[in-house]
């Protein structure tokens, strides 16, 4: 597996399988870890960062974490490759930032089910991604990877504050649990505030598609924990499994039923209009594509349209992003050329006219 082969398809976590995958797009666990006896990334010089980078890379690659792992040295990769990894949620925007002088890397494995960022805000950020509602499975894998790495390296840890992290908001378990949810009906019925309120009561954050500060494009929302200290990993997981996710699922399902009952024609109009535009438009921007794909996805899940399936829609969510689009067409393009190429790609994949 390499970056070029990756581009053609969506990663495992976007396959549209797993429990509740009509609403829960993906589950993600992230563990923040630092090596004992080293300064944190923000305080260390080039040589120290280099030491951490090579040590972590060697231990990850020789630790037999997965059958195949690829190591990407971000200092040696192009802007476009880094952007590609951001679009696939394998690295953060922060990790992609900066030029080639950055001593950063990422290990990607298991059909893109995990990515370990080295020298992001913390020395190690272990992330596991799964399609649908599979937080328990994602946590198990993250925990196993963590066990392997901790048997080979000393982590910065103290008994009072737990795993020590560069930002004190991650200290303790260093865990971030998050789910990405597709909530088009709550958006259409103007009830998305219900989700925010429910999340707030549990001290959870609600964000858009690409995390911090991003808008909820394509009606995709990420819900994640904000506190990390004072409770065991399983307790954070339980909030999601037993409280917030079932609650949001029922809100969205109710909103979908309400739309079907009270405004079936308007609903069908949204769905078929999205289909018509996606299969015939000649110029399309990213944001509008995400919106139309969202309505189309809702239509398929409600059985109102069967001209396309969920995996194909999920794939288009990804392939129409700027870096993927340019990788697929094989050339760098300015924004207006990209809009034309995007429309062409969608017509081709959906069999439009």
């Amino acid at each position, binding site marked *: 597996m390499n970056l070029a082969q990756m581009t053609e398809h969506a990663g495992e976590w976007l396959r549209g399988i797993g429990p509740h995958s009509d609403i829960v797009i993906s589950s993600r666990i992230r563990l923040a870890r630092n090596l004992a006896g080293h300064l944190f990334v923000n305080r260390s010089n080039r040589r120290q960062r280099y030491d951490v980078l090579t040590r972590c890379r060697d231990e990850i690659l020789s630790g037999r974490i997965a059958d195949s792992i690829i190591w990407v040295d971000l200092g040696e990769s192009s802007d476009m490759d880094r952007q590609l990894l951001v679009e696939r949620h394998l690295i953060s925007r922060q990790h992609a930032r900066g030029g080639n002088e950055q001593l950063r890397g990422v290990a990607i494995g298991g059909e893109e089910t995990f990515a370990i960022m080295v020298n992001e805000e913390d020395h190690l950020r272990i992330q596991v991604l799964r399609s649908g509602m599979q937080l328990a499975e994602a946590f198990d894998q993250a925990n196993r990877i963590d066990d392997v790495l901790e*048997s080979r390296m000393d982590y910065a840890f103290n008994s009072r504050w737990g795993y020590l992290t560069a930002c004190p908001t991650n200290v303790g378990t260093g865990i971030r649990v998050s789910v990405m949810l597709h909530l088009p009906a709550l958006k259409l019925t103007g009830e998305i505030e219900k989700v925010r309120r429910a999340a707030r009561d549990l001290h959870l954050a609600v964000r858009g598609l690409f995390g911090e500060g991003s808008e909820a494009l394509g009606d995709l929302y990420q819900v994640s924990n904000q506190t990390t200290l004072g409770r065991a990993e399983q307790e954070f997981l339980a909030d999601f499994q037993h409280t917030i996710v079932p609650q949001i699922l029922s809100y969205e399902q109710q909103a979908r039923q309400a739309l079907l009952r009270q405004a079936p024609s308007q609903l069908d109009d949204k769905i078929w209009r999205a289909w018509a535009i996606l299969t015939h438009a000649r110029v399309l921007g990213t944001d509008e594509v995400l919106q139309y794909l969202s309505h189309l996805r809702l239509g398929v899940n409600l059985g109102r349209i069967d001209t396309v399936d969920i995996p194909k829609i999920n794939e288009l969510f990804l392939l129409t992003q700027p870096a993927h689009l340019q990788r697929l067409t094989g050339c760098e393009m300015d924004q207006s050329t990209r809009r034309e190429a995007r429309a062409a790609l969608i017509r081709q994949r959906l069999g439009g006219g």
Partner: protein
Amino acid sequence: MKRKCDKCDRPATHHSVEIIKGQKIEKNLCDEHAAEEGLLVKAVHTPINELLSNFVKIHSGGGGGESKDLTCDNCGLTFAEFREQSLVGCPECYRAFEKGLAPLLERAHEGATHHVGKVPARAGSGEARQQKLMRLRKRLSDAVSAEDYEMAAALRDDIRRFEEKSS
């Protein structure tokens, strides 16, 4: 339009609308009266940056400013620098800044004061070891800066032996 508190003349900072049995109940309250009503208990999670700037405010407002003079011996970060960037510089900062950090962490983590959950298998021999390693690495870094390569090579061997001893 600035609303006034329902119960006094101060500006309202807490607004809520509840619908109970079809009745719309709107409340606009100042901090003090909101706390009285118990509305502050469910306070929204405050991002750390905001906590930090509030912290700065309290401490520059006179009295109790001891934390701001704290410095981490290991990495040289001062508490004031930490407040600006909201990142600490090394594991030792947690010890050096404990007095200033503890109240912040408690607020950022909804009152939690101690870690619960996973402990690394190797944590037992842990903290003294970590400090020793940190000291060795610091000496190594100093030796490299001073271009004392003989010393640096010796320290590197020490570090390797020390790491191997425990793994």
